[in-house]
């Protein structure tokens, strides 16, 4: 099996989805790293559920303020125009549809866009955090993840076996091997990682993929 893109390259591909004027929330794990890869020519405001907006990349050692951290408790930098607010206000922004793009890690995504990312069944306990609020409020939900589990099993499945975060909430899946859009007709393969074929992606994806007529290689 192809190992595919590094986490940094997945982050760079995710950042290319952002448009001028977007308010974007980055979930814990791989997505929080995306803040270091937002292109300088795109005017994006990053929102963090702990109550801040307008933060920047991950902080260097000499820039650390212990009380200036992202959702994963990693120190970050602040950009001009930033603001702070309490958690109830932060989630009012999320539920109210003001945060328009959410990037989330995922254990599994189903062919209907169901997302499972808060609890592995076998662990017996998980942490939902703000994930359920974010998927119910955001206009666009991007799932960013490794294409398969460490054991090589598909994470893109017909039906999620881990508890759901939300039904039919994922719009776009960006993995180490591919970019896949969730459409009413099913999953559409739109891009493949450099050196990876559509067939290789299908071999590690449980549901049938429709191949976009404009299938292309991922750019960063």
């Amino acid at each position: 099996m192809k190992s595919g893109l590094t986490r940094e390259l997945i982050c760079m591909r995710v950042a290319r989805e952002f448009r001028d004027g977007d308010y974007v929330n980055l979930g814990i794990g791989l997505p929080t790293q995306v803040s270091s890869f937002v292109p300088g020519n795109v005017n994006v405001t990053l929102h963090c559920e702990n109550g801040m907006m307008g933060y920047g990349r991950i902080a260097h050692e000499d820039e650390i303020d212990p009380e200036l951290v992202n959702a994963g408790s990693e120190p970050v930098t602040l950009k001009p125009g930033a603001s702070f607010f309490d958690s109830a206000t932060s989630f009012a922004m999320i539920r109210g549809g003001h945060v328009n793009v959410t990037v989330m890690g995922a254990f599994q995504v189903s062919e209907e866009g169901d997302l499972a990312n808060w609890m592995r069944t076998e662990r017996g306990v998980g942490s939902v955090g703000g994930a359920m609020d974010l998927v119910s409020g955001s206009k666009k939900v991007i799932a960013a993840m490794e294409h398969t589990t460490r054991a090589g099993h598909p994470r893109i499945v017909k039906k999620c076996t881990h508890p759901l975060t939300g039904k039919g909430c994922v719009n776009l899946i960006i993995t180490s091997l591919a970019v896949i859009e969730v459409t009413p007709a099913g999953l559409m393969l739109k891009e493949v990682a450099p050196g990876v074929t559509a067939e290789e992606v299908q071999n590690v994806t449980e549901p049938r993929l429709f191949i976009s007529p404009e299938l292309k290689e991922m750019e960063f």
Partner: protein
Amino acid sequence: MIYPGAEAAVADIPDGATIMVGGFGVTGVPFTLIKALADRGAKNLTLIANSAGGRLPDIDLTLLVKNGQVRKVIASYPVYSGRVSAFEERHLRGEIELEMVPQGTFAERIRAGGAGIPAFYTPTGRGTQLARDKEVRVFNGQEFVLEFALHADFALIKAHRADKTGNLVYHRAARNFNPVMATAAEITIVEVDEIVETGTIDPEAVVTPSIYVDRIVKGKRHEIRFD
């Protein structure tokens, strides 16, 4: 209003109390008050906190968990990936009850509790196991889940600065749940980095007005480690 130390400020927290504790991850956590509550040893506590400790186990809520002081936790982020906390072990052994609440619902239930709203409908969680057995109502063709307000006997919160009247300001992302928790408890105890004379905080800059604050304690400095 201003207490000489954290021990005195938590001295009347009884067994069986319901306690909100502020903080998100390692920020805005009232570590000095948590230590004092661990030393006091009140048992059978219900904690309402975003997480159940484990990032900084020698100073966070893990202290109360390891002491066997906790009966139940209401949280959105009780466990972390890549590490097993004392809370997780005890929860999986059936020793500590857990009520898992989506974080926005958690914040709004606390806000409602402080604002005299008994319950509300939210879109969050519909169709998931966290909405199981909850009342659902349709508005504008969409399903919403009924959630109830949260109240506490005590709120232990962290702010950056208090004036002697109890007006509070916060620092950066350490604000998080602290301002809403301050509104939803019978007695709110705040730990601050500094206490200043009344009148020196710009009224326009006050985040938590003094009406919500009952006790002020100057906290100790804690080293925050990032890993």
